[in-house]
């Protein structure tokens, strides 16, 4: 085995980060996607654009602005300091926050599409069957949007695992705290340690492939289309 302790540590850290980020993103992304799918507010387009921004911004740019934002002079940094949380950069929490920003569109977009595809009618039907809006959300919207949730979770997870620029910028490459797999691979490759790089990259590839395969097998793509 070519993997050293640092590699294995980085692997566990990555899975932990991706899991935490995915769970939080589903919680945050759901109301945002729901609002975007349902609103007729003039704010819909600007908010949509803001949510999508991380998709087009180079990660190092996003990372840099997050660094400034979370820094001692930044508004977020001042907030976390005032709350007694200290500064976020170079911490696992900081990585989580940055990854949430970075992967947000990958959670929101599939959810929004799933909510859009459901349309107005099932909600109206549920209302005429005495279901309150909240009840409707859990008894109708969630089950109908399940493929969207799967896609959102897979995309968020995969994107967080593969993310590099932002993590590098915010993390400070601290072993066991912020040195995730992608950074570890980058370091190996940059240091011309290709063998270790290959092992890690190959492992990452295999892992991602298995996760995707498993999720898609349980949740065939296009299930949402067939339903309607």
């Amino acid at each position, binding site marked *: 085995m070519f993997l050293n302790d640092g590699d294995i540590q980085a692997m566990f850290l990555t899975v932990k980060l991706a899991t935490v980020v995915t769970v939080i993103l589903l919680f945050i992304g759901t109301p945002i996607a729901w609002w975007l799918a349902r609103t007729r507010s003039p704010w819909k387009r600007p908010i949509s654009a803001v949510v999508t921004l991380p998709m087009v911004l180079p990660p190092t740019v996003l990372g840099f602005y997050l660094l400034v934002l979370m820094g001692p002079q930044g508004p977020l940094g001042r907030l976390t300091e005032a709350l007694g949380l200290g500064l976020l950069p170079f911490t696992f929490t900081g990585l989580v926050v940055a990854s949430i920003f970075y992967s947000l569109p990958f959670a929101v977009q599939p959810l929004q599409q799933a909510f859009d595809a459901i349309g107005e*009618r099932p909600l109206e039907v549920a209302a*005429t*069957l005495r*279901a*309150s809006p909240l009840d409707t959300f859990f008894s*109708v919207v969630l089950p109908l949007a399940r493929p969207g949730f799967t896609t959102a979770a897979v995309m968020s997870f995969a994107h967080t695992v593969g993310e590099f620029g932002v993590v590098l910028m915010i993390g400070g490459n601290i072993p066991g705290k912020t040195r995730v797999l992608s950074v570890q691979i980058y370091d190996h490759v940059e240091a011309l340690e290709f063998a270790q790089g290959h092992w890690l990259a190959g492992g990452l590839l295999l892992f991602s492939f298995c996760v995707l395969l498993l999720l898609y097998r349980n949740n065939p793509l296009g299930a949402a289309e067939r339903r309607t």
Partner: protein
Amino acid sequence: MSIELRFTRSYPGFALEAELVLPGRGVSALFGPSGSGKTTLLRCIAGLEKAGGGRLVVNGEVWQDGDFFLPVHRRALGYVFQEASLFPHLTVAGNLDYGKKRSAGDVPDLRAILDMLGIAHLLQRKPDRLSGGERQRVAIARALLTAPKLLLMDEPLAALDSQRKREILPYLERLHDSLAIPILYVSHAADEVARLADHLVLLEQGRVLASGPLAETLARIDLPTAADEDAAIVIEATVAGHDEAYHLTRLDFPGGIIWVTRRDLEIGRKARLRVLARDVSIALSEDAGSSILNRLSACVRAVVDTDNPAQVMVQLDVGDTAMLARITRRSRDQLGLVPNMRVWAQIKSVSLFL
């Protein structure tokens, strides 16, 4: 017992202005061409459209008045949508249960409703394994199982082909006979209305043109229904007897009798007859030389022009029953038809609804 409503609502290019008092039981049809505001009115009643400042009282319960607006899920109503609207993630049983377990009312007997709509054998199926007609029957059952105090049906047959329509109509008639709650039924199909409705509301461009008992309203010569090619009236009749020798069945109505081909019907049973205006001709005397079986003594009430320059519409009183006859202008002049003239109405064919 009644439904009082008043809604005003404007959309780009369309405004709804309706004020109505409808019977507190039986089927009221909201009838009109597409774009007349039928569905919008129904959605306002359901609360699916938030018509500000409207008023709605259903058999004494205020659902909406000024600023007071009872949200849809708090209104004791059943709604059957035009197209199949079953939840795809639930089985038939799951769909039926959805509304049932959320209803606060006295939920009707499941067995009775399953039997009435003929869906007992479908319970474990998913909606995508049902035919269009089966889906609508399940949707109706689902609505009924919420113990509604008002049933709203938005063209429940419009998305079905004619065969499926024939399959489901008997169930709707059974509904009509067995339900104690009022039903509002949106339709643009005259035959459906003639068959199912007791009360007729005629809508055009968001306004109420007429609202009244079905037979009376259909016989009105001043409404666009009378100008239609398929203008027709309905007669409430009673099965009076059978002529076994000629294989005919006799139906009595206030104004006369009508013979139809022998049907296996219980004497005394109510039946509804639909008579198209174009199937009624007029003679000045009882023409014993005619092959037409049903000849009724009548009195001309009014004669008006139609959209067709060759034809006029004649309104007749047959006893207490009003009828319409569409004849050519030339015949009118040859016969010299004027109001209060005694004539004979000859009926070429009738449809019998049970």
